[in-house]
């Protein structure tokens, strides 16, 4: 930012720029300078985002060989195929169900934890640390922990149920329970991050607003409804958007907990793409699925910005 006037000054007054044209167009040097700064991220994005993205779109119009090289151009046939494929439609339904479970429940849980952790109590720092600690755990490690918890006979959950005299649950083996189990795992894994962000948002709210409300006689719930939630809306908007995108992209916990089963009930779309590409070697249809996923996330994010943002009070 500061470099613009500086360059101008040196260009005009000190005259250390040899080319006359540089003086006439002082912006031009800034432009190349800016490009230079942008170069690293531009290269990284190109290699890891833009190229794969266009390559995926390209591949989705082809049949491929085992190495993922395009062999036969088939136009939109891959798309036609997956939209008539039971497996893909089931996967899409499972994904939507999964998003509808994990996003609201995860955000509300994180909001609740942040609200109680924002109270000024002795030793509250301990709870803040605990609530955000699972942020530091990898997907693999957390999934393995839950794998143990869900174990039909040795798992803590079933042991608890039997201690309480309740019948045991086939957490990962029953199709209805499996999607719930994966959702619970996901909610648990994402809570730390959402909690930390929401807590930060809460602490950003001016304490005096609550003090004034208290003096004027507003109780806790009134303050929550008329001060906290509106003031927190930008943070909540951010968390909901990120959680939505994350939920659509869930992979690791499915791979470790259920491998998409039982009966494909947890075959979420990214896992389905993975299987299509690296188990069935159908890179063309896998790419088509990936493009559909991209479209879904794009549409949801646009809708979220269009309708969700209206309710956000930026300061």
């Amino acid at each position, binding site marked *: 930012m500061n470099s613009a006037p500086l360059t101008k000054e040196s260009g005009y007054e000190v005259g250390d720029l040899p080319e006359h044209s540089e003086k006439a167009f002082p912006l031009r040097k800034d432009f190349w300078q800016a490009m230079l700064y942008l170069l690293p991220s531009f290269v990284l994005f190109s290699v890891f985002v833009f190229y794969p993205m266009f390559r995926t779109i390209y591949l989705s119009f082809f049949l491929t060989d085992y190495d993922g090289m395009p062999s036969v151009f088939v136009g939109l046939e891959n798309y036609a195929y997956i939209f008539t494929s039971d497996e893909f439609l089931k996967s899409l339904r499972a994904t939507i169900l999964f998003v509808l479970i994990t996003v609201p429940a995860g955000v509300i849980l994180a909001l609740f934890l942040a609200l109680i952790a924002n109270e000024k109590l002795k030793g509250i720092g301990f709870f803040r640390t605990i609530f955000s600690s699972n942020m530091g755990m990898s997907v693999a490690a957390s999934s393995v922990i839950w794998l143990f918890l869900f174990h039909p006979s040795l798992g803590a959950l079933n042991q608890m149920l039997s201690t309480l005299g309740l019948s045991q649950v086939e957490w990962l083996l029953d199709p209805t329970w499996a999607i719930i189990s994966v959702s619970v795992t996901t909610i648990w894994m994402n809570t730390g991050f959402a909690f930390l962000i929401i807590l930060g948002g809460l602490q950003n709210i001016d304490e005096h607003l609550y*003090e004034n409300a208290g003096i*004027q006689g507003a109780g806790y719930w009134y303050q929550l409804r008329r001060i906290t939630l509106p003031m927190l809306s930008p943070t909540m908007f951010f968390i909901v958007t990120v959680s939505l995108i994350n939920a659509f992209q869930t992979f690791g916990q499915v791979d470790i907990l259920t491998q998409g089963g039982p009966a494909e009930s947890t075959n979420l779309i990214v896992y389905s793409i993975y299987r299509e590409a690296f188990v069935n070697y159908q890179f063309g249809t896998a790419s088509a699925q990936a493009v559909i996923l991209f479209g879904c996330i794009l549409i949801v994010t646009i809708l979220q910005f269009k309708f969700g943002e209206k309710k956000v*009070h930026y300061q």
Partner: protein
Amino acid sequence: MKQVKLDGLYKTYDGTTPVLSNVNATIEAGEFFVLVGPSGCGKSTLLRMIAGLEETNGGAITIGNKRADQLMPSERDLSMVFQNYALYPHLTVFDNIVFGLHVKKVPKEERKRRGRETAEMLGLTDYLKRKPRQLSGGQRQRVALARAIVDESPVCLMDEPLSNLDAKLRAHMRAEIKQIQRRLGLTIIYVTHDQVEAMTMGDRIMVLNKGVTQQIGTPLEIYNQPANPFVATFIGSPPMNIAEGEIKDHKLFIEGLGPIPLPNGGAIDQTHVYAGIRPEAVRFVHDPVREKGSGLIEVKNVEVLGNETVLMFTAAGRDWYARWSGQWPVKPGDRIPVMIDYADVALFDKASEKSIKHGQSPDVAAEISREEVLL
């Protein structure tokens, strides 16, 4: 409209160092009471204790006839204006103003009427639909005031409400707040570090330093009869000149000035004193030889303010000020004869810092009775 009584208030944040100790005051119903003191002396803490936002560690607060120090803030029946205004950024000006009425479930029609009336009183009618961020600092300040007075709480607390405004607007708002207070008969407890605000707004002033009450009195009492050197130097601009002095041979000796003779029968027991002289009591003399208590000073700095001239010089190792009305053709480096009348000198005991003798009221106007003025 309600009395507020503070009885031996004590406050500590860390359990050992007192932030406030033994604060006593009775704020009368309908009084404009100003708490003034340097930054960090505990003014906000005291105000927040009255509001119930900070717990008291000793003593009692009575509001009206009710013991209040254990009550919730909402039960104390008061309103508060914060230094940063604490407006709700997501609510419109109107909703900000009627926030408290909404909380108290005042019917919608009445809410509207009272909100509009208050907005009108503060000249906010055109801004009711705006959000706070679309207002200037002065307008925000008015919204904060409106929100406080629309509740019709009998006691209103204000914590440096004007300190974020520019000087001109501040002077304007001083007068406006004062007028509203008179019109509504509010009891206002007003915190400021600005002695001008204290002098111009307060019916009575309480000067606080390091959590200890220095003096309580009307502005003129505080100005004319300061209880100790701290009050003497804190109130008044430029501040009262203070120096160590010695009383010998019926004369007051101050380093750098000529000896000031005591009048007949004006003997003082103490030898070591602090002498305080208001800048306006350092007078120019035409004939230094004949006038007693005169001396030559060397001018270090001159500020000509149009209607008055302020000179700075050094006496007893400190900066002293002289303030003369009119425009004086004086330059730094000039040596000027001045004199000090013993009657103008305030004396404080050096050990206890207690007042021994007040200086006479510097301005003639103070000596004129009200009856004479009104003729």
